[in-house]
C-alpha cells in the first residue's frame, strides 16, 4: 500500500533533515517544475489529478488556483498561505505532517507558489503546535540555506519568500478569509465574497490558501503524475487521505490510507474496535461540524461523494466516535458550547442563535427541558443553516445538531420526559462544561 505523505514519518523520530530528505527524492518536484514546466502546466496537472482540498471543503485544488490572475498584468505580489491552523475539534492530522516531515510541506508550498506565481508565502500555524513551529522553522532555515527559498531559486529566476506566522487562538482563523484578516493584524472576521481571495486576498493581492495536507500531496503529484495519484484512491476520489479515529476505541490514531476505505475498516481494523464495556452509538466522520452517521453507515467509503450521499461530510476525515455511555445531549452540548464560544459575533443568527441553542441543550441535559425546546432546536437548524449566515461556522454547527435530533431524538425526549439525564451517574446535576 503506497503512503506517499507519511512514508518518511516515523513516530518519535526526528523529521528528516534537508540532506536526508534530498536523498530520498526530496525537492525533486521543485527541480522538475522550474526546469520543465510552465506554471499553467503545473495547474493543469494538479487539476487532472483530481486533488481536492483536505481542509474540509473538498474543492478542486487545481480549479481553485485557476482563478488567480496570471501574466504580466496581474497584481503583485501574489501570496500563498499554508493553512496550518488545525482547530476543528477531533482533528489531529496536519500535526502529523507538520511535526513529521516539514520539508514535504515546504516543497509543496514552493510548487503551489510557482503554479500561481506567488512571491511571498506564509505558514499560518496555530499557537498550540509548539513542536511543529520548531520543526517548520528549522526546515525553512535549511531550505533558505540550500537555495530552495529566497531569490532566483536554483538559478530559475523564480523568487519565493516564506514566513512562519503563529496565531493567537480562535477557530475562526481556519476560515480562509478570516485567516487573511488575522494575518493582516485584524479581528478574524470572515470577509464577504466576492471578491474571492484568488483575486483580492492578503493585503488586497491575489492569494491562495491551501490546507497543509493538500500542499503535501503536490510534490508527489508532480513527480509521479495525475494517473498515479488517481489510482491511489479506491473510489472515484483520488489520492490517499490521513484518517483519524478518536473516542472510546482500543487504538485511537491517525493513518494514511487510500481514499475510500470504509468507516468499518477504520473503526475495526485500524482503531481496533470499541474498548471493552463500550458499544458504538454514532460518529462524526470529519470533525465537529459534520453530521452524525450511525450503525447503518458503517460500510460507507470515507470519500467525499459517499459520505455526502450518506448525509454528512468527509470534512477533515478525522472521526469522533460516540459510545453508548456518552450522553448524546451532553455530546451535542459540548459541540454547541464550542461553536457559540468561537462565533466571531459578526452576523446576528450565529452570534445570537448559537448561545440560544447551547442554553437549551444545557437545560435539557440538566433535566429542565420542555417539549417545545425540541421545536426551537429544530427551527434553529434551519435558520442557522446554509444561506442564512455570513460564513460556514453556524451551518457547520447545525450539522451535528440536526442529525442528532434525527438519530437520537428518543434520547432527547427521554431527558425531557424524565426531567433527568439518563446517563448521569448522580441524581444532582453536574455541569458538562
Amino acid at each position, binding site marked *: 500500500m503506497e503512503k506517499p505523505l507519511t512514508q518518511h514519518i516515523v513516530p518519535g523520530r526526528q523529521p528528516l533533515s534537508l540532506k536526508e530528505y534530498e536523498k530520498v527524492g526530496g525537492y525533486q518536484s521543485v527541480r522538475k517544475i522550474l526546469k520543465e514546466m510552465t506554471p499553467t502546466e503545473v495547474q493543469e496537472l494538479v487539476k487532472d489529478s483530481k486533488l481536492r482540498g483536505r481542509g474540509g471543503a473538498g474543492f478542486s485544488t487545481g480549479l481553485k488556483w485557476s482563478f488567480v490572475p496570471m501574466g504580466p498584468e496581474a497584481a503583485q505580489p501574489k501570496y500563498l498561505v499554508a493553512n496550518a491552523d488545525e482547530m476543528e475539534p477531533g482533528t489531529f492530522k496536519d500535526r502529523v505532517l507538520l511535526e513529521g516531515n516539514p520539508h514535504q510541506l515546504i516543497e509543496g508550498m514552493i510548487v503551489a507558489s510557482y503554479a500561481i506565481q506567488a512571491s511571498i508565502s506564509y505558514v499560518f500555524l496555530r499557537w498550540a503546535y509548539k513542536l511543529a513551529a520548531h520543526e517548520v522553522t528549522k526546515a525553512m532555515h535549511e531550505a533558505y540555506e540550500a537555495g530552495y527559498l529566497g531569490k532566483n531559486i536554483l538559478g530559475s529566476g523564480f523568487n519565493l519568500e516564506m514566513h512562519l506566522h503563529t496565531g493567537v487562538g480562535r477557530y475562526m482563523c481556519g476560515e480562509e478569509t478570516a485567516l487573511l484578516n488575522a494575518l493582516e493584524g485584524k479581528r478574524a472576521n470572515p470577509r464577504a465574497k466576492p471578491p474571492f481571495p484568488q483575486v483580492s486576498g492578503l493585503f488586497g493581492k491575489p492569494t491562495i490558501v491551501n490546507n497543509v495536507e493538500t500542499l503535501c500531496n503536490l510534490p508527489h503529484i508532480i513527480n509521479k503524475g495525475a494517473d498515479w495519484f488517481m489510482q491511489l484512491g479506491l473510489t472515484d476520489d483520488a489520492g490517499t487521505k490521513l484518517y*483519524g479515529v478518536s*473516542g472510546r476505541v482500543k487504538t485511537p*490514531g491517525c493513518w494514511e490510507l487510500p481514499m475510500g476505505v470504509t468507516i468499518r475498516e477504520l473503526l475495526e481494523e485500524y482503531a481496533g474496535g470499541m474498548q471493552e464495556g463500550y458499544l458504538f452509538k454514532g460518529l462524526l466522520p470529519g470533525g465537529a461540524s459534520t453530521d452524525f452517521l450511525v450503525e447503518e453507515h458503517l460500510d460507507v467509503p470515507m470519500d467525499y461523494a459517499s459520505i455526502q450521499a450518506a448525509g454528512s461530510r468527509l470534512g477533515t476525515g478525522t472521526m469522533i466516535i460516540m*459510545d453508548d455511555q456518552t450522553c448524546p445531549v451532553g455530546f451535542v452540548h459540548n459541540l454547541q458550547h464550542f461553536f457559540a464560544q468561537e462565533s466571531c459575533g459578526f452576523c446576528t443568527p450565529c452570534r445570537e442563535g448559537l448561545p440560544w441553542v447551547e442554553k437549551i441543550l444545557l437545560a435539557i441535559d440538566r433535566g429542565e427541558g420542555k417539549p417545545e425546546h425540541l421545536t426551537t432546536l429544530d427551527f434553529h437548524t434551519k435558520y442557522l443553516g446554509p444561506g442564512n449566515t455570513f460564513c460556514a461556522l453556524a451551518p457547520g454547527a447545525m450539522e451535528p445538531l440536526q442529525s442528532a435530533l434525527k438519530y437520537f431524538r428518543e434520547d432527547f425526549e427521554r431527558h425531557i420526559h424524565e426531567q433527568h439525564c439518563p446517563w448521569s451517574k448522580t441524581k444532582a446535576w453536574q455541569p458538562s462544561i
Partner: protein
Amino acid sequence: MLSIEEKQKIEHEISLVPSPKNACIEALKIVQHSHGWISDDSLKDVADFVGMSTAELDSVATFYNLIFRRPVGRHVILLCDSISCYVMGYDGIRDHLYTALNIQYGQTTADGRYTLLPNCCLGTCDRAPALMIDNDLYRDLTVEQLDEILSKYT
C-alpha cells in the same frame, strides 16, 4: 513604556508588512512575551507605536483568546474541553485541578503560580484527555499524574 528590545522586535515585524497596523498582533505577542499579559498601559504603548487608537487595538486584542488582557499566573494551564476530551472524561481532570489548585476557570492561584483556562481542541485527540502548561503538552492524562505534573512548575 516599550523597552528598546521590544521596539526593535516590533520594528522588524513592521518591516515585513505594508502598514505598521498590520503588525499589531505580532507587537502584542512581543509585549505579552516580556510582561506576561497586556495591561492598559501596554495597550496604549503598542497602539501609539503602530499608529492605532487604543479602542481599535483593544478590539483586536480582545478577539484573540491567547492575548491576555488581565494578569495571569507565572504558568498558564490550558485544559482541552473539546469533544474527544469530553468523551474521554476531561471533566475528571478539570475537577481535580479545581481542587488541587483551589481555583476555577479564569482564576489564578493565590501564590500567582497558575492560571487555569479552558481551551479548544489541542489537536491531539487520539491521546485525550490533554492539556498544555506554558509550552508543554501533556496527553493520555489521568488524574493520578496531575500532582506530579503540577509540581514541575514553580
